[in-house]
């Protein structure tokens, strides 16, 4: 697969700008899940690891591919799983509490 340098740099710069725009709107309450969620996104490195597995032809190549795939898979699966586990803990109200008992301004 080929991608000329200018296109690659364009994609990179636009990606950075979109990232800044979207992420600066995330409230600090969610910064930990944001970071672990972003962590899971860089697990896309797994696709790169698959491409190097495809190109591997000798023992060293296979060994490096094994490490890269294992790292990538751990990153992607663990990252999404733990982010989901954290986010499901964020509840708007106490579970089981009768409506209106803990009344706040902005429910």
């Amino acid at each position, binding site marked *: 697969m080929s991608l000329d340098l200018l296109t690659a740099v364009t994609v990179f710069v636009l990606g950075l700008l979109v990232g800044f725009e979207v992420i600066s709107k995330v409230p600090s309450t969610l910064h930990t899940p944001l970071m672990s969620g972003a962590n899971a996104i860089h697990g896309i490195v797994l696709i790169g690891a698959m491409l190097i597995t495809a190109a591997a032809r000798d023992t060293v190549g296979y060994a490096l591919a094994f490490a890269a795939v294992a790292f990538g898979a751990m*990153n992607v699966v*663990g990252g999404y799983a733990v982010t989901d586990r954290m986010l499901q803990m964020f509840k708007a109200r106490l579970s089981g509490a009768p409506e209106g008992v803990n009344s706040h301004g902005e429910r």
Partner: protein
Amino acid sequence: MASVETAMRYVLLGAAACFVLGLHLMNHPARARRGNQLSAAGMTAAVLAAVVLLVSEGAITTTGWIVFVTAAAVGATAGLYTARRVQMTAMPQLVSLFNAVGGGAAALLAVTDLLHPGAAALPARVTVPAGLDIIIGAVTFSGSLIAAGKLQGVVASRPVVFRGGRAANLALALVFGGSAAWVVARPDSPVALAALVLAALAFGVTMVLPIGGADMPVVISMLNAFTGTAVAMGGFVLGEPSLIVAGALVGASGGILTKLMADAMNRSIPNIILGGFGTGDETPAVGAAGGGQVRAVAADDVALQLAYAGRVIVVPGYGLAAAQAQHELAELGNVLEAHGITVEYAIHPVAGRMPGHMNVLLAEAKVPYPQLKEMDEINPEFPQADVALVVGANDVTNPAARRRGNPISGMPILDVDRAKSIVVIKRSMGHGYAGIDNELYTDPKTGMLFTDAKQGLAALLAAVRTFVA
């Protein structure tokens, strides 16, 4: 074949869109979980598309498939197991570990590319990003492992400073800079590649070792940004736009968080990396506050004060999590709420060991998220609070930050001193990381409840229950 590849390109584009939309949905706690699921769905589609493409092209050898399937199973199982089992207080370690594996995998992409038989003919547009990928990826790999070790307590969390440490750092930087240039000039030289990898790995260790535990929120954010950048560089090497987009998104996220954390700690990023003032993890328990009387109070008095308050703002700090007392605190909040008292939690950006950590700890203790308030949101509310209850937070409540001429001058703080009355639960008059007296403790409005956070909150809870029963 070409049509399968085109289809895969579109799937990958869709995945990148899912990542962006998923991050966008994270702008509110009510939508955040859906955002993460959307992102995960995009990722699943991308991986499946890559599998389909490789199968249809017959590109992977049988051995390759065995390697891939075993490695993926091992990695996924390890990831899932740790994600399910990890304690919320240990989240910073886990994120560091995922940074390490992500950075390591990214570096391996470039290493493999340079080990190929045709590496000698690689153009600079591949070798330059490959060199950067290896440097950033390897530094992130070893640096994140050290950071995780410090957070876990396996590696000393105090700043480990040794003679000539900075000179060693500089020398290592010169070695990896030089070997990167060598790799670009001679992409097929295994010696250059080995020197590059080893120097970058060593630099990661010597960079993070001298940084104290209290600065970890900044370090983790920075290593997160590094991993993103390394993955993007891997995308340049392989000519894979999805890696570039995802890497850029993570780089931006890590960059923003690094800046926010450094600002909230009143530190500059170079100052943290080069080592600054007392960044140790141990709070020195010596030294009483100079000047001004300290008023010690008993748990029963505090409970009475809380029971008759209309509005209470709780200020939790890392000491709370260290004492594992967040459940007692949440329970106390619930009892007060049930009694008709408004309870809110004022969360400073650096409360915890990573950005936003305290919010997760309180969410786990079942504190409803509308009660979790950011610093800018809660600061104007303190004058209306009958009681501000400070548990395990120190420097971030010190009014001295508003004056010039002390180590925390200019640091953003919670305006706790503006509450009608203040209660601080603390074991002793010990100093915070900045090593200075907290003027809040000698404020006439402040009562000090000298006890451990967990015991103190349990005592308060019991006493409040007798008053509101």
